[in-house]
Structure formats: C-alpha cells, structure tokens
C-alpha cells in the first residue's frame, strides 16, 4: 500500500530522515517509535505531502504523493491540532470533513453513533467551539474525524498523548478493531511502548532519522524495545 524509495529529508545539510526502503503492505498496522527528533512526524508529513522530500519518493497505492493528489481520497490523518478548525463546533467539523469525503449529514450522524462510548458525553451537543474544548477532547474529535469515510490508509501521530486513561484504553480497543480489518492500513506513532506493541503487528524504530529496527510484533517485542531504549 505504501512504498518508500530512497527517501531523505535534509534541513541545511543535516539529515533528519533517511529511509532507503520501506514497504507497508495493505492491511498492516504499522507502528513507529523513536525518541524526540527521530523523524517520526517528518516521515508522516512526507507521506501526507506536507513537506517535500530532499530525495526519493513516497508511493501511496502506486501514486507518487507529490505528483498527484489522488491518494487523498483513500487516506486520512490526524497529526496535531493544526488539523482542527477552531471556530467550528465538533458536529460542524465532522460534517465538513464528511462532505470532503463524500458523506452527507445522515451518514455522519449514524457514523458518530458508534463513538458514544469514546466521546463520553463530552463532545457532541456541547454547544462549544473546538477551540474551547480541552486538549484531550480536541484530540478525540481529530481522531474520530480521521476515520470518516472509511479511509484505507489512516495515519495517527501520537494518538495516545493527552488522553485520559479510560480513553486510552478505549482507543486501544478501537484501533485493534480497525487493524483486525484486512483492508485498513494503519500508521501510528507513539512514545508509549506498551500501547503500540498492543495495537500494531509491525514496529519500526527510528533513531536520528535512520531505521534501526524493523520487527514483527510478538509477546517479546515489548521487552526488546524496552531494552533498546534503556541507555
């Protein structure tokens, strides 16, 4: 589904990402871990064509992302709060994203029905603009909006950060359900090694821009990662 060829990103001669090759097959849930500055967000931004690569390219379903925009139809993401429109209410925001993804109001309403538990009565019908919600609640909105219109590729940057424990557990459940579906390709980054080993079946470790580990998730993975990050 996603294919990376010879991808590098340099800022003023300093390499922040160097990924000669990476292949993410359809249906995989792919985890990205690494310390601050390892290049996780840079990678996601490159996949989403929000920054330009210095060399190489990213192919999303055989489409080169910076040459055609057709990949946007089947791809969605939540990177940070720059993906939210502060002056809309959560409902309006969902409808807005929905319309961009070919879903009408009724579709969205029934879609939102399955997230009642996840929203915990703090999102819908609150008569508040997104800018007035707490960071955690904003994140819930962004995450759910990224699932609108059954996208095939879903990219979530640090989805667990800022969420309360209950919501973290609910999100884990949600992501597991998604990764169980054969047609969904998930890309998730996280600093929480426990969470990410639970919801993904492949983990790549980035260190200063380089891929240093690429492992299939097994019960031993968490131990292995903890050893790696213990310095």
């Amino acid at each position: 589904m996603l294919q990376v060829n010879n991808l590098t990103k340099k800022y003023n001669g300093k390499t922040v990402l160097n990924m000669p090759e990476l292949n993410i097959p359809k249906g995989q849930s792919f985890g990205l871990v690494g310390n601050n500055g390892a290049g996780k967000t840079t990678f996601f931004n490159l996949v989403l064509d929000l920054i330009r690569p210095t060399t190489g390219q990213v192919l999303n379903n055989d489409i080169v992302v910076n040459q055609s925009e057709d990949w946007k139809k089947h791809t969605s993401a939540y990177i940070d709060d720059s993906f939210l429109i502060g002056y809309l209410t959560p409902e309006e925001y969902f409808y807005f994203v929905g319309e961009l993804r070919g879903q009408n109001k009724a579709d969205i309403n029934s879609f939102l029905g399955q997230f009642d538990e996840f929203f915990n009565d703090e999102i819908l019908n609150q008569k508040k603009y997104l800018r007035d919600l707490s960071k955690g609640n904003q994140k819930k909105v962004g995450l759910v909006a990224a699932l609108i219109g059954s996208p095939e590729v879903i990219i979530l940057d640090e989805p667990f950060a800022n969420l309360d424990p209950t919501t973290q557990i609910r999100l884990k459940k949600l992501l597991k359900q998604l990764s169980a579906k054969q047609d969904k390709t998930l890309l998730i980054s996280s600093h929480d090694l426990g969470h990410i080993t639970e919801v993904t079946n492949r983990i790549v470790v980035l260190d200063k821009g380089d891929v240093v580990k690429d492992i299939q998730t097994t019960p031993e993975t968490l131990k292995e990662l903890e050893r790696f990050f213990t310095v």
Partner: protein
Amino acid sequence: MIIKFLSLQYKQFFRSSYWQRTLVLNILMGFLALYMLVVFLSIGLSAYFILKEKFPNQDPLYLINSFLIFWWIGDLLMRYFGQKIPEMAFRPFLILPLKKRKIAQYILLKLSLSFYVFLPLILFTGLAGVLVYKSYDSFYISIWFLTILLLILGNNYLNLVINNNIKIRNIFLVLFAGGVLLYLSHIVPLTQWSAGFFERLHNSPWLVGVAVFWAVFWLWAAYHTIKDKLYLDALLGHTAQQVQTYDFKFTDRLGETGLYYKNALKKIWRNKRTRAYVYNLIFVSLIGLFYIKLLPGKTPDDTLRKFVMAAFFMTILVSSSYGQMIPSFDSAYYPFLMAQKVNFKKYLKAEYLIMTTMNLIVLSLSVFYMFFSWKYFVVLLAFTTFTIGIINPFLLWNGAYNTKRIDLNKKSFGNSQGISGRLLLISFLLGLLPFLLFFVLLVKVGFLAAVIVFTSIGLLGILFHDYLINKITGLYIKKKYKTLHGFKQLN
C-alpha cells in the same frame, strides 16, 4: 529588565519568516515607510498655506483648531481599526520570578513608541514649525503642541482599553456617533467648542492640564487592563459561552464551493477579529456621505472628483482589507486542508465570493447616494465592477505569496498579528494605480469615458475569470510547501 524584553522583541521580529524574502522587497518597504513620513511632513508643512489660500479671510490656525476635534475622533477610530496592540508571548514569563508590573510597563512602553504615535507627531511638528515661522506666539504654540501630543498619547492608551472593554467602547461609540449627528444637524457646534478650547490655551495655558489628565488617566487604565489580562484564563477565554449555530443552508446550492463559502462565513462571524469586517461594511458605505457633506467642492463636478477617493475606499479598500489576509485566516489548519481532498480552485472561488459579497453589500447599502446625484452611484458601480473583475482576482494571486500566520483562536490584546509589509506595498500599488487612472480620465476626458473604461476593464476581468482562477490555483499548489512552512512559524 526592559532591555532584556526589548532584545527578545528584536529577535522575535527579525527571526520571523517574514524577513526571509527578497532584499528588493525589503528595500521597497523601507522606501514606502520613508514615503509615508515625507507625505505626513509635507501635509504638516503645507496645511497652513493651503488654508490661507483657500480661506484668505480667516485665521488658518483657527480653522485647524475647529477641526481638531474631528481629527481626534478620526485618530481614535483609525487606531481602533488599524493599530496593532503590541503583544509579547508573555505566557512563558508568568511563572518566572518577574513582577507583573514589569511586563505591563514594557507593553505600555512599546505602545507609546508605536508608529501610530510617530506619524501624527511628524505632521504636527511640521505644522508647529510653520506657525512659529509665521510669527505666532511661540509659547502658545509650544503649549498647543504639547496638548496635541498628550491627546495622541491618550488615544493610544484609550485604544488599548476599548479593545478590551466593550462597555467603554460602546460609551465612546455612542458619544461620537451622537456628537457627529448633532453637529451635522446644527444642534451642537462641535467645531466652535473645539476652537474655543484650543484658543483658550492662549490666555489660560494651565488648560493643558486637561490633556495631561486625559493622557495619565488612560495610561493608568491601560496599565490596569494589561495587569488584569496577565492570567491564563483571561488570555485563553475559559469562559466559553454556549454558542448558537446557524447553518447557512443557502450555500448548499453552490456545491463544493458552497462548502468553503459556508466555512468562510462562519470564520468571519465567529472570530472577533474578522467580525470587524462585517461592521466595517456599514461604516464604509457612509464614507461617501462624509465626502459629500463635509468636504464638498466648489462645484458639483468638483465634489464628484473628490468622491472618486470615497469610491476607492468603498470598493477596492474593502476588498483588500480582507483579501490581503487570504489564506492567512486559514493558517491554523492549513495542514489539515492540504491533507484533504480539497479542490483548490473551489476553495479560492469561495474566498473570491466572500470579497465579492462584501462589494455587493456595500453597493446595495449605497443606493441612497442616488438621492444626491445619480453620478455618485454610477461611479460606485464602475468601481465595484472593476474591483470584482480585477482587484479580487489580483488579491487571490497575491495570497499565494502570503506566508504570515494569523491565529484566529488566540484571544489576547485585541488584534495583533497579520498585516505584513509586502501586503502594505501591494495595497499601495493596488490603490494608487486604479484611482489615478479613473481620476485622470475623469478630469482629462470626461465622466462617461472614465466610467466606460473602468467598467469595461472590470467586465473583461469577469469574462476571463475562469482563466485567471485556474492560473492562480496553479500558483497556490506550487507555493504550498512554502506556505505550510510559513504558517508554522508562530510569530
């Protein structure tokens, strides 16, 4: 401490992405600033002689004193709508061992040194110089000058207060509107009062105390306003009220363009800074009245020539005040838009429609000018066509180079960021060229020719609208990464 703040401010200013552009543009901006100074100085230097020539039987200083009250009101309005209140990202300082007093003092210092204080100062320095040269009593002129300086400073602080206190703002609004209305209906002789006050400084120089009190009072009020606002909740507006949402159903007929149009309408209505544009439309439609009633020429033709300036304010300036912020108003969520299947052409079309809507609202509010003369309305019609055809696409084009972030979500001291120098330059060119074109045609060839040429150019623009929009869309896509990078810079 103040020195340290200043150095931070200096770094914030010079390290912003705003300077990372061509040297030529920066130099041009420098020239523009210089030009403004020269213009203000020459107004100050020539005002006396112009008045002397136009009204040989009256004392020019008396005339100036009569109208100082309107200048003073205008100055405050200009500040309210135009002046940026200095803001320092002071959040990091709040928990440092620093007295709030210091932070407030610093903000006030910066406010006192603003360009908006400096410009009128230049004007009045020139004027005072000429007056002394023309052998007015130099002691009186010094007191007079001091009074005006204090009034300017007072306005400066008052502006900060009314930006943060709606009640006080409304009191002043009612006072001014009422005063001007009563003056226009010859009930209250505002100009005589104004002249009376400034003439009285002759015999009772102690009256300068009134101005001292005015400035000090608002300085005190501004100081306390700032100190009160140095809290996270005052800053972030935790007192979110319940919101009423309106759906703008009529936009559905426009398809995808309608979706962005609807969003832009919400954007304008739900953010304080952008909502000013709506109120502005009403205010702007009255500018022509101001020219016709307060600055009439000797003959109707003469008044019509002056009205061209008003028409410019009422059309081109309305568009550019909003248009120069495209797409900065969307900067906070630009990455989101770029990651979606947003049809750029339709997105731009929606922004174009917003500007056009503003033009049409002003035009329909201006129908009453026909009661004065049909010619006024025809001039407005020609200018509106020109704006819709040429200026609005031009502003969209300009927006492709716009990389200055505006945070709509931020509730700090009034409006603070956004206007960049490049845009100032563009608006300057934008304003001067069409205005001169129309004016020269009107004076040299005739009313009909000017109207026909202007309307035709505008219609041509509308005819090739699709072509223009397509070209501009391509440019936006090409500039996307630069724009995204610029919008990430917080200051």
